[in-house]
């Protein structure tokens, strides 16, 4: 391993876990970082040279990533105590915060290995709220409904959710072992309810969100909106769904089955 001596190095403290049932432990790595380096490029360096700061050769750190431009959502982890994407976490900025970079897996999802977690709960939640537009099929049936630019703007902002899980990791109400559905799925329900055809499933979505773990379990801490990397107006979505469920509940009290 030839480490360029005149390159700056930074200490990485990585919380590791070999398998879902085994106990976590910490390991330190010293990683050289050229300007422009980010956490992923450093993890790649560790993968190529898996040697700890005290000189032991260990198994490389496992982590998730794909796009490397903060759009696929795969590489989410807890960096220096805060949840974010590792691909867009620039070392130059992290170095200003602290002397070392700590990497931990997200705490609200089961760990698969090292920094990899299992976020299938998020995808399952999307099934629960029927996060789709119920089109008639793929045959050519003309264009979709027209839409005002203002509505498009609102929906576009919501459509950028990459199911990364930051909002859930930071939420005090979303826990590894409870049923809260979390801000991302609530916001997706709003997204589909705002579409002309998507609306036809609105009642089903709201009913799902009125069950335990639904929208009313939100405690309005508003951490979600602070950590969302895509600046999705999650607290507005929560309020909007709050209104929709309120109206839906009253309506179904008086005229429901």
């Amino acid at each position: 391993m030839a480490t360029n001596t005149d390159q700056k190095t930074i200490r990485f403290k990585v919380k590791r876990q070999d398998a879902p049932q085994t106990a976590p432990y910490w390991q330190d790595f010293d990683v050289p970082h050229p300007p422009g380096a980010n956490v992923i490029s450093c993890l790649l360096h560790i993968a190529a040279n898996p040697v700890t700061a005290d000189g032991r050769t260990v198994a490389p750190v496992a982590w998730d990533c794909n796009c490397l431009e903060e759009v696929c959502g795969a590489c989410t982890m807890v960096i220096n105590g805060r949840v974010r994407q590792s691909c867009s976490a620039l070392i130059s900025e992290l170095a200003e915060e602290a002397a070392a970079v700590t990497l931990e897996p997200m705490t609200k999802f089961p760990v698969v290995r090292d920094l990899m977690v299992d976020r299938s709960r998020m995808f399952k939640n999307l099934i629960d709220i029927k996060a789709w537009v119920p089109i008639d099929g793929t045959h050519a049936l003309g264009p979709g409904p027209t839409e005002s630019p203002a509505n498009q703007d609102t929906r576009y902002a919501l459509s950028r959710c990459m199911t990364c899980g930051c909002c859930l990791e930071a939420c005090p109400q979303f826990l590894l072992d409870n049923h809260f559905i979390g801000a991302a799925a609530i916001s997706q329900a709003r997204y589909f309810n705002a579409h002309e055809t998507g609306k036809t499933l609105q009642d089903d979505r709201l009913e799902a969100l009125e069950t335990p773990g639904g929208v009313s379990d939100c405690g309005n801490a508003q951490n979600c909106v602070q950590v969302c990397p895509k600046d999705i107006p999650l607290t507005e979505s929560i309020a909007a769904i709050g209104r929709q469920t309120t109206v839906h509940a009253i309506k179904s009290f008086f005229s429901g089955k």
Partner: protein
Amino acid sequence: MADNQPRVIVVGGGLAGLAASVRIAEAGVPVDLFSMVPVKRSHSVCAQGGINACNEVARQQGYSEWLHMDETLYGGDFLNHQPPVYEMTHWAPKVIDLMDRMGVPFNRTSEGQRDLRLFGGSLFKRTHFAGATTGQQLLYALDEQTRRYEADGKVTKHEFWEFLWPVLDDSNGKKRCVGIVAQDMRSMQIRAFRADAVVMATGGCGMVFGKSTMSVICTGGAASRCYQAGAWLGNPEFIQVHPTAIPGEDKCRLMSESARGEGGRVWVPRKKNDDRPPNDIPTAERWYFLEEKYPKYGNLVPRDIATREIFFVCQQGHGIGGGRMVYLDVTHLPDATKHKLDGILEIYEKFTGDNPRNVPMKIFPAVHYSMGGLYTVYTAKEDSKGMVQGAPNNMMTNLEGLYAFGEVNYQYHGATRLGANALLNCIFDGLFCGLSVVNYVRDQKPGARAAELPAQPFNTVVQQEQAKMKRLLEADGQYNPYQIHAKLGDELTDSCTVIREENRMKRAYEALGELNAQYKNLGLSDAGMWTNQTLSFARALGDMLIYAEAILAGSIARKESRGSHYRPDYPERDDKKFHKTTVAKFDAVTGRATLEYEPVPTPLIAPRARTYGKVEAEADDNKKDKKEEAATS
């Protein structure tokens, strides 16, 4: 379990794979969908600029599906087959309508119609978009429809499963694909899955070049495995280098063509080594070289041309500070226009720390797209105007029952892909050729279903893959796969991207031999049997080396310049010798490609010179150099 229902396997959950899954499931055929990552995180999510289709506004200015086809063929330097391009461009409006119905938040005009933007290689606004993250919105829409079928039990997702090898059966005398062998990337279990047809929709191979604008799983490994199993490659040497990307440590991040489509301008300081901050350089001292050289298309010439111009400008020492960068400038655009580009401007800001709304971006070309891929066939209509809908062989590889959709399919783009045609080709493949898959599996005779075959062909492949894994895990050589990969990337990027010099390519070819030797002497730092990512990467590296050989061999053998393939020693297009598809067949004995050439029929449009109205630049250049001397003296 004798099951009379045919099943289909789709490998890949990008746009192509999801569109295929939806189309096939809709027809009532159950689908097993495989992806290395949750499908919603597939590489298609990165696509930014938009998706092309003829539309009423453009039509009333003289545009048409026919012109869209013509642009695609002209852009592709006539290496593309015409009937599939005809069909795709004529289907394009339907594709947009469908995505619109699925709820894709396309940008809107004040009246609520879909907004349009200009894109490379066209003089008409025909690109539909959702901000500057169109791929994300399109992928999500298809992901949602897939989830709907998943909830109904018609699509079974196998996420974090890696395709390892196709299973071929030749009991009927003809090789037929009857399933795949795949590995669970968490438990590392390797097993076979049966299916009456397999659709490969595994995307491009940018990782062969080390750094590219593509995602990290775009290794081309899956395509390479099919190639080694007997599928052919078409035009592997055609690799697109995108003109505008941010060079990075781990990846070159794309700054989409939409920046130029919305009015962004490419320039360099007129004076060499001008080290003033860009905003201090007055307009008169900026050289908008693309606009000057191509007055008609300006900044929106096709990518290969823009890329070469940028490359040459830098080679001549005109790059920013004399280096290898030029400015991409959107600072002059109105706020509302910048808002449409937020998706990419945020990327620039996040990764460089500069706000491109106020400061011109610094960009350089980067490997972006693979025009080549698995070789496929189709059934053309009698008049060659399109393909026969539902013909079972549409986009089938030379192996029966094995299809290739999306970027991994070599069809449609010829020698260069026009911007915003890839998303179209992915969705079109899935929808149009999905029906072909359905018809193919329904035509299978009962008794010949994959589910009814003996276990032997499946077990053979499982054993082959287990042995391969064992070999890799037990390897204790001295070479690290990540380091071999870095060298492979350097060699290919240096020799086989913008400029392809024969001697440099031959050196790279030799280096490849050395890397292959090192690969045989690999040592893995992880021998575990749980979520072993190193194993997966090391295995794909072997496949990348084989794919790289085909790219290099194809590039060396093609002694002409065409589209993205530019040879300084053969700077002209040579239709007589090379208006042909390169067909690469894997020779298992030598581990190399055997190249064959297949003529490209041109039933609809005759090839013409591809100039994009370039003004003869030389006189111009001389003038400039003189001016410069005057300025410096």
